[in-house]
């Protein structure tokens, strides 16, 4: 097994962390909701990458199954997110998230 494991698992963790924080940064700094949704997808896939890497490393199928769950959730999230974006655009004629502040306390 270990011969097949050419790349050490820590590399995967590192890559995953980098992708995740790119996603975080995208959510925090961009004002376009479409870009923000794409950033969230990046975070999901960083998590997926970790699942796969650990599933291979420990030879356990739970990681695979979780990856499928995450993909499903991500699809649902994208659908709802895009619906919100369309709704906001219809009412406000723009999609700048900083201007969407109806619930400000």
């Amino acid at each position, binding site marked *: 097994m270990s011969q097949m494991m050419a790349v050490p698992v820590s590399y995967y963790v590192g890559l995953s962390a980098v992708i995740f924080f790119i996603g975080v940064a995208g959510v*925090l*700094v961009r004002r376009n909701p479409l870009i923000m949704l794409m950033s969230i997808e990046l975070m999901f896939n960083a998590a997926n990458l970790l699942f796969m890497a650990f599933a291979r490393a420990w030879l356990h199928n739970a990681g695979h199954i979780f990856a499928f769950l995450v993909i499903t959730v991500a699809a649902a999230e994208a659908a709802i997110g895009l619906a919100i974006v369309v709704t906001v655009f219809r009412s406000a004629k723009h999609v700048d*998230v900083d201007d*969407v502040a109806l619930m400000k*306390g």
Partner: protein
Amino acid sequence: MTHHVMGVDGSYPLLLVLWLLPLAGAILAWAFGPQLKTAAGWICSALVGISFICAVAMWGPGTQSVSGALGAHQALFSWLPGFDFGLLMDPLSLLWTLIITGVGFLIHLYSIGYMDGDRAFARFFAYMNFFVFAMLTLVLSDNFVGLLVGWGLVGLASYFLIGFWFFKPSAVAAARKAFVINVAGDVGIMFAIFMIVASVHSTAFGDAFAFAGSYNSGWLLAICVCLFIGAAAKSAQIPLHTWLPDAMEGPTPVSALIHAATMVTAGVYLVARCAPLWSQNHDAQMLVGTIGALTAIAGAILGCAQWDIKRILAYSTMSQIGYMIMGVGVGAYEGGVAHFFTHAFFKAQLFLGSGLIIHALNNEQDVRRMGGLMKKMPFAFIAMLTGVIAISGIPFLGAGFFSKDLVIQGALEHGHPYLYAVGIITAGITAYYMCRLLFVTFFGSYRGDVDPSELGIRHPELAGTPAHGADQAEAEHEGSGHGQAHHAPAWIMNVPVAILIVPTVLIGWLMFGGDNSPWAHFFAQQFPHPQLSPAPIGEGVTGLITFGAVLVGIAVAWWRYATASAQSRAVERLRGESIRMPGILTHAYYFDLALDLLFVRTSQLFGTIFGRFFDPQIIDGAVRESAFSAQWLGTLVRSFQTGLLRAYALLLVVGVAAFMIYYAVIAGGVHP
């Protein structure tokens, strides 16, 4: 546990009928008063009369004695398992029932005449019938809770009737005072019931008395004291007596029925009913006997200082109930109850007689403005004379002699020489102030046309009671086109008074003959009869000593008010006496002031403290502070709600980072 029922259990429809008829009358007169008009008076009187006939018919069952059970017991319903309601008629409650319905019937008849033309004629009879029902509930109940219900209801009826002429502020104040003091007594009885339930797990008289010997003596004393607080409030015993003179604001028939004959003797009934408890505790007997004697003499002395004919009678009622309480308190139950029995007749007689005068003199109640009425109202004079003879205790001529003697002698027999002496002195004072009332009212010449200030009446506008509802009703009659206001015939008021003369004079002979008297036989099985050592002074000698004191009282009254010289200078004498009357007597020993300072002012002070400080500062403050802190918290949390989506995201990231740092660093990292 087994329950001890007093009386022979059975079905007694007559008992239910005599109990519920007055209630039916009350509801009828209440609901259909405007339609019934004067018929309400006749219907209500008739119902009480039928009740009386039923009570007479219950004589047999009420006095039966089968294997230790005395009287008749009718089960009604069960409240909780083990707490049953029922009616009990034994000789004691039979006696009270006969007086309530019998004397009550006569007073109802009299009221038809007295209240004639009052605009609330039917309402008056509704209240009167309601009172009779409440009083019957009180005396017929077979348990303490039923007794307390009746106790509260008679207080309510008394409140209604004292304040019957509610357009008089003084009547409203008197009604309120009577009610409040009586409720204080009700609370006492309630606590007694709590203690009884705690000891025997039952409220029935039978259970409470069956274990009377097994109570802890301090506990028993506490029960007796609590019961007596109730009895003292209802029966106008010191220091809870102040409501009774004020209660004379009610119509005179009310004073006769409620505040002389029946309701105010409920305390006597309570102590006599609880004789098994009192007999077990010498301290309780001593307390009640002493309070009774104190009330007897204090009331009698105050009777000497009054000018209002009804207030004189009110203080004499207080004094006579003092005798009764003294009798039942020391253990001379037959004597105390006997004095209730005779007093019900002669005091009703005196009140109804004074009602004749008040009615004839257009609501004048001040005896200084009467005088010389013997020729004008010979019938009222005879009525009052028999009453005065009876209450003064002139031997063999009136009923009061026999019963008062039983009480006084009973005090000595049960080992209370001081109370015995107080009883004799009080008898002398009683004779004095009752003869004073008689002489000032009926002898000499009429003083109604003399200027009030010449008679020493300081506030003439306050002295007499303002004209009552009759005048208003007459005005209404004229307004509604009835023309001349009709008046009931005089006989309707005279007949009950004439009938009452018979028992007032003669009923005392029932108590004549010591242990062989009909009276002693009637109560032979009712009360405990401890073995007593013979009294140092015999009954005949006691009678003589009492008669001596009575003669002195009459002589002083005669010398002061009835001699020729006193009669000729009556106006100056009365003025002089009014002016010289010591303040301690005209203010009734300042009891009102003392009660005012002790209870009214202190509770007002409490009210002020709580109203001015505690409530606004502590209670409202707590509410206000919790509102403020919620507001502050809201402002704080609201500042996070920027509406900026990316700020929320940043918070999320910071939160996740915090968790990660916690698990990675502080919690020592993840250990697979």
